[in-house]
């Protein structure tokens, strides 16, 4: 094959060839990435994941059930501080009941038992109850963020999940 033809060197030819295909691939890749991003919506029609739960003073020591039905959480005030427990049993997702006289959560479905800390101690539940993140907002109210949760005992002292007041 000739090195030069109609004013174009072979080197130039190769450059155009590779530039073309490289750009084409990058463009296709970019389009594919944009389309992938398209599948992750910016906004959802879901219940907001965070909610305001009033002033800390409104809570007495122990387990508080006021948000059990509306937000599916228990807010617990312990000597260590506030934490928020999910009301979903870690076994099969039923909602345990808080038995205040026995100081434990008892799942009606399969009998899993949890201590007020969320620690499982009886029945088939494999893990402690999950905990949600909470913090004080500007106005001094508790704000609970259900989009962040922990399931491991080792993280219980994380300041985002245990609020000292």
């Amino acid at each position, binding site marked *: 094959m000739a090195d030069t033809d109609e004013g174009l060197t072979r080197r130039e030819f190769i450059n155009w060839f590779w530039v073309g295909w490289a750009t084409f691939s990058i463009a296709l890749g970019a389009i594919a990435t944009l389309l992938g991003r398209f599948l992750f919506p910016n906004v959802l029609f879901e219940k907001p994941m965070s909610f305001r739960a009033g002033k800390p003073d409104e809570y007495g020591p122990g387990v508080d059930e006021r948000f059990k039905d509306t937000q599916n959480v228990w807010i617990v005030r312990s000597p260590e501080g506030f934490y928020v427990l999910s009301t979903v049993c870690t076994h*099969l*997702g*039923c909602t345990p009941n808080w038995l205040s006289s026995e100081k434990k959560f008892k799942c009606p*479905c*399969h009998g899993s038992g949890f201590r007020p800390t969320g620690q499982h101690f009886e029945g*088939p539940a494999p*893990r402690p109850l999950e905990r949600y993140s909470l913090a004080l907002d500007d106005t001094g109210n508790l704000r609970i963020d259900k989009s962040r949760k922990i399931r*491991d005992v*080792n993280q219980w002292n994380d300041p985002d999940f245990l609020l000292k007041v």
Partner: protein
Amino acid sequence: MEWLKDVVNFLSNPTIFFTGAVVLWVLIMKYYRIWTAPKFIKTVTILSVIALGAALFDPNFAKEALKPDNVPIWIMIYSVGFFFWLAMRRGLLNDDLMAEGLPNLEKQESDKRVYTWPDLVYSELICMVLFTAFLVGWSVILKAPLEDPANAGVTPAIAKAPWYFLGLQEILVYYDPWMAGVILPGLIVVGLIAMPYFDMNPKGNGYYTIKERFWALWVWGFGFVVLWIALIFLGTFMRGPGWNFFGPFEYWDSHKVVALANINLSEIVWVQLFNIGLPSNILVRESVGIILTVLYMSVIPPLLAKTFLKKLYEEMGLVRYSLMIVLVLIMASLPIKMYLRWSFNLKYIVSIPEYMFNL
């Protein structure tokens, strides 16, 4: 009759059921000459239909067996059985022919070409019409199921995936979701696609045969029939509320209590063996499991390449062999894990819940 039901219930226990399936598979592949006889299979079919019919008198059995969504499974069991028989039968005939130095059944005709019209066109049309008739009839007899309206707040006693995924859901008992739901299905697909490139045997292309590719049939069939079909059967008919085991004639009691006595390898080692608490360092704690896993994946392949699979290794070359053996080992890890669970109550070999990594 009750004792018979009890016996069947007992035998359907996952341990026995699965072991039985494996043993049966070994026997099937060893004695195919016997059961591929038409008389034999006819007898077995008739007997099984009678047994099934009789079993349907048991309300507990009938309830699950006749669930509209479970009917396809019976169709699948019988059709897989029939076609497996057909394939093996023809393979046997071909093997016999070839042993005599004669061309096999396909070879006898493969050079002849016939007009597509009307042979193929008509036979396909007939198939379609027959199938349509069958489908409409099925639809008339069985209504599609519809339960209560969706309610995320009401958890059913048991949540099952569609039946064709129940094999995977059964694996969930032994592996965490990331293995059972992501890695294993992914590897199944990858393995299937890669299979033609691993199978270096040029024989057996385009005709039924057993002898010429016995081990290929053995391994692939084990995966399809035992690890897929049999586990679907188990998952559908023998797993009740709470994914607890129930015999085919047992009532699905949602209050059944089963001891959860499973423990991790690290606990066996540190607590049961050395009687000290778990080390706080994760890597130390899980060192035994990690070492075992690494050994399984890194030592066995070269060992096999040197011994049993020497010939195969030489044929395939390093890259092909390594890829294939990894896939096979992962597939084999499932029954291994199952047996470890049953014999030692072993929950996880490596258990790092801190990073949700459990093996």
